[in-house]
């Protein structure tokens, strides 16, 4: 559905952030992109959705393809029109707009008011909590509700592909599970393809079908999610488990003893 081939991204014409990244997102599935802070996960998403340009970043090499269409170099609002939408990290709802107005703005690419109305109804069936808050200013919603709104707002454009950037950020574990369950349902029922960026590797690998691990602007590991879950390096560095599978104590962590094997 979405494929990124050997993409390089340069900020300010100088700083090389992505050094040849290739990712495939299959139709109707969740693909997760894991990695530490500053690995380049968010930049990857921005390179795909086209918002990179407003941050003086640029795709200098490689291609991004949505279905048959090449979308690298396109402007963000045109990419959205083609059916790919990004949900930003940190929710970023339109704080001064009400919940429902956020959804209306999200449905901007719909041709007529009927499409918007149907979209709103769909979002409310997936996120009934938003319906209760429909006329409230969204800046005053709780963190979880804002995350639901951010996802719902993205759905308003009736996308085929959704880029989801750290939906678990700053939310209580119960809420995280609730949101992931809904995302999982969306993928199955609406045939969505999701590229999920997460710090919460446990959660991400539990819902994803396929995973990539990123470090320093490169993909260092990829595979089906269940294989990744069993990978000893992933366990050690992203899931915080020891070889036996028990939760590891930070006291025992001796980073100098064990090196990540993919770093040569």
């Amino acid at each position, binding site marked *: 559905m979405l494929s990124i081939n050997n993409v390089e991204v340069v900020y300010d014409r100088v700083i090389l952030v992505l050094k040849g990244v290739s990712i495939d997102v299959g139709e109707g599935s969740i693909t997760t992109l894991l990695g530490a802070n500053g690995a380049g996960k968010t930049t990857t998403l921005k390179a795909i959705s086209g918002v990179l340009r407003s941050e003086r970043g640029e795709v200098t090499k490689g291609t991004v393809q949505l279905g048959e269409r090449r979308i690298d170099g396109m402007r963000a609002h045109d990419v*959205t029109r083609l059916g790919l939408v*990004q949900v930003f990290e940190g929710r970023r709802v339109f704080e001064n707009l009400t919940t429902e107005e956020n959804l209306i703005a999200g*449905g*901007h690419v719909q041709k007529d008011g009927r499409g918007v109305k149907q979209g709103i109804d769909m979002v409310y069936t997936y996120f009934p909590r938003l319906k209760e808050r429909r006329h409230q200013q969204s800046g*005053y919603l709780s963190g979880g509700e804002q995350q639901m709104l951010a996802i719902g707002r993205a759905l308003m454009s009736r996308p085929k592909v959704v880029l989801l950037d750290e939906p678990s950020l700053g939310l209580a574990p119960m809420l995280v599970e609730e949101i992931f369950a809904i995302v999982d349902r969306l993928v199955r029922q609406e045939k969505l393809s999701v590229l999920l960026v997460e710090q919460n590797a446990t959660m991400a690998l539990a819902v994803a079908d396929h995973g990539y691990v990123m470090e320093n602007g490169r993909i260092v590991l990829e595979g089906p999610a269940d294989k990744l879950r069993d990978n000893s390096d992933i366990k050690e560095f992203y899931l915080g488990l020891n070889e036996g599978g028990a939760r590891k104590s930070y006291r025992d962590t001796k980073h100098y003893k064990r090196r990540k094997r993919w770093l040569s």
Partner: protein
Amino acid sequence: MSEDLEFAFALVLSGASIGLMYSLIALGFVLVYKATDAINFAQGEFVMLAGLIVVTALGFEAPLIAAVVVVVLAMIGFSFGLEKVVLRPLLGRPVVAVIMATIGVAAVLRGWGPLIFGIETRNLPLPIGDEPIAIGPASLPPIQVVGAAVALLFFVVFNWFFKKSRMGVAMRAVADNQQVAQAMGINVERYFALAWAMAGIVSALGGVVWGSMLGVDVQLALVGLKVFPVVILGGLDSIGGALVGGLIIGIVESLAAGYLDPYVGGGTKDFAPYVLMILVLMVRPYGIFGRRQIERV
């Protein structure tokens, strides 16, 4: 009603109608600030330019309605072009850059306007007569009634636009967060242009009513100075704030002129709004209706 009360009523009434006309000009400022975050110091000059265009069109024996159409189109074109040529390249630059650019535009307009359209003060007659219109115990010159009505009409229209229409909601989304709006499929640049075009329309009508009241020459640009107390009082990004701010400034001005001028020999009208503005800045820096940043703790 006693004579004192009647006097006060007349002052308030006249202040309110003038205030609504201030609101009209402030509206142009607010529209641009709301959507694009640009502070337009040339708002008064926009009004002056509109006035100059109208009297020039009337000078060619054009009927009034045609002249108004011409000025509206001309001002849309002008603000459109200004956005594209001067302000678009400054996107993402510090606010000061935009402010300096608009101050520069203001200076250019004040200089070139008279050069092209002539320096003498010209009348802008509207077919509404001079017979004061009685309202209760007081009366108003018809131009003030027309000006206030035009202002109110614009407020109703824009209020509907921003609250109910999809385009208006999208425009508010752009104002709220440009990057996210873009990712929602909203063409941000098109909405910037639209905001400036709307400011152009408002300025065009502002030029007609203010030009008709004061006469058209370079001095007309000075009404732009009243924009700042109005929008700071009402909130820089609030349409309703521009309305209420204009009303308050107009009434304060009128009361100051009526009650203080006899003691100090005149001129309070010109500084009373600014005293109020400074007080507001100390108490509510975001204005009465301005948006406060929502802080999460």
